[in-house]
């Protein structure tokens, strides 16, 4: 075919265009997640199996939180039609994984241990994403939802062993053991707390996503101390990590906390290490739970523990990592990490070496 209708274009120009097209195609094909290769992969995953496992997970979740569930709530939770949901439930019942009485669905023992296995994979994968990959926290759940149906048991256990057999996922949920053990649900909802109550966030509900994302934007995370300052029917005011956060009762009902028995003092709002100017020194007050896994451990190994004196001594030529003098050694720390290290008692240090 001669490209007569674009006569201005010479052969090299056509080549360039075709080349560009080819490159775009190549990029599309190899694009992770949504590209051609990923599409081909997703055709091969067993959709039916994924659906059944998701339903089992949901049933278990209801059981764990002592909430009733039926076909309608299942359909709503999995974003499927009622017909599809009742098909799925029929399959579960015929496989001996679930039972139904008066529309209430519950798990059989086999179904429960199956569900626990899927949950274990999900939470271990989330833990892995959080601690070893640097994937953004808003992506952990979706990514784990995809992976949980594909991982083999061996590879999950290998991963778990490498990470030191974790018992909590990054949202603060306990990870079931290989034998399917799981501790009892002890937490209460933040919405049930009274003024003056203190607690430790143990879980942020990750469904529905929009709410979870918003909670993350508020700066809430598992392991954070909260202090309820005001409760009205319209809103709950809490102090979390030194900042005041106002939540509607619905948002607060998505947060699970363990109420403190001891009367620990409220943590005042701390400065962070990134604010320390070269020539100033301060005392470490703590590390935010945002820094987790290896990152956190490495920082502690290097001497960043409450009570240690830190002094900013040098700034990198490109401005970012700053060198801090900690226990006689200069340690370079990036701003993005220093922001998560709390300090107190900032003082200006008199540099003696200039004398």
């Amino acid at each position, binding site marked *: 075919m001669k490209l007569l209708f674009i006569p201005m274009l010479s052969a090299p120009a056509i080549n360039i265009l075709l080349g560009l097209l080819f490159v775009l195609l190549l990029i599309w094909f190899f694009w992770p997640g949504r590209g051609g290769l990923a599409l081909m992969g997703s055709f091969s995953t067993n959709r039916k199996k994924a659906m059944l496992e998701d339903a089992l997970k949901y049933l278990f979740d209801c059981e764990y939180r002592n909430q009733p569930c039926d076909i309608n709530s299942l359909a709503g939770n999995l974003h499927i039609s009622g017909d599809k949901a009742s098909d799925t439930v029929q399959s579960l019942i015929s496989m001996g994984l679930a039972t139904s009485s008066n529309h209430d669905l519950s798990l059989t023992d086999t179904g429960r241990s199956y569900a626990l296995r899927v949950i274990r994979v999900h939470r271990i994968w989330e833990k892995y994403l959080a601690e070893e990959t640097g994937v953004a926290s808003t992506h952990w759940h979706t990514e784990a939802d995809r992976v949980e149906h594909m991982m083999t048991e061996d590879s999950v256990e290998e991963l778990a*062993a*490498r*990470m*030191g*057999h*974790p*018992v909590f996922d990054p949202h603060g949920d306990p990870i079931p053991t290989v034998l399917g053990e799981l501790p009892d649900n002890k937490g209460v909802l933040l919405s049930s707390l009274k003024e003056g109550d203190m607690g430790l966030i143990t879980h942020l509900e990750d469904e529905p996503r929009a709410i979870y994302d918003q909670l993350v934007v508020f700066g809430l995370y598992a392991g954070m101390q909260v202090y309820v300052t005001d409760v009205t029917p319209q809103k709950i005011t809490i102090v979390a990590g030194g900042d005041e956060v106002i939540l509607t009762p619905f948002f607060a009902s998505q947060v699970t906390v363990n109420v403190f028995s001891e009367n620990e003092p409220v943590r005042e709002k701390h400065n962070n290490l990134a604010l320390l100017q070269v020539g100033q020194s301060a005392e470490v007050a703590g590390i935010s739970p945002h820094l987790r896994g*290896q990152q956190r*451990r*490495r920082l*502690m*190994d*290097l*001497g960043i523990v409450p009570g240690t004196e830190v002094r900013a001594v040098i700034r990198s030529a490109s401005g970012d990592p700053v060198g801090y003098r*900690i*226990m*006689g*050694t200069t340690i370079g720390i990036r701003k993005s990490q220093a922001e998560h290290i709390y300090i107190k008692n900032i003082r200006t240090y008199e540099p003696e070496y200039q004398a």
Partner: protein
Amino acid sequence: MSQNIKHDCENCPVHNKANLVRLGINPENVDFIIALAGNPNTGKSTVFNNFTGLKQHTGNWPGKTVSRAEGGYIFNDKKYKVVDLPGTYSLLSTSTDEEVARNFILFGQPDVTVIVTDATRLERNLNLALQILEITDRAVLCLNLMDEARRNNIKIDIRALSRELGIPVIPASARSREGMDELLLAIEEVASGKYVCRPHKIKSKSAGLNHAISEISGQLMAHFPGLPNATWVAMRLLEGDSSIIEAIRSGHLGSLSPDREVTQPV
């Protein structure tokens, strides 16, 4: 005790030096196994090279020597194997280096673990030293880089440090071979049982943790009587350490008893 060693040796360095035979790589039929542990940048490799006559090079990066180097020497007619462990800041994290170091000190059963520390930043180095003392009862602290410490006007009360830690503390400057003979002697005394260590043990400040540790170490002691470091093993169990879990599952942990013969052939 450590003062005595130092005193003895000031009178006889030549004698000791004559008694050191470096074996380089590949020692066989050794009497004692020595592990060298320490933070990165403390001159651990220099001590190793001094003992063995090898020329092991490790840059000043953690992660540089992932595998461990081995060598040997003869001192006062006893044959020693030295294992240079990767330099780490801690033994409680999950990196490969730490796993190698941790597992060797626990399962490799060295007769003496020499903890090489930087005298100019003792506090930082004590973090690792205290962790090692949780695992093993037989250790010597080599306070290296004393020349740098002197230059920087840092004074260390050796006697008090030795008393606090419950192990011999030998000041040294491995680069100029200062203190190496005293170190060899201290190793010998600990290995042969002449010096009995009373290592410092960490007391946790959290009541909940103490409770958990005592409960689990109680169970461990019941099942593996004579386990020398039940507290440490319990702590590692609480960290989910795979190799410890495996050792318990297989029962292998039981073979780590404290009363084995010191001169047991390896």
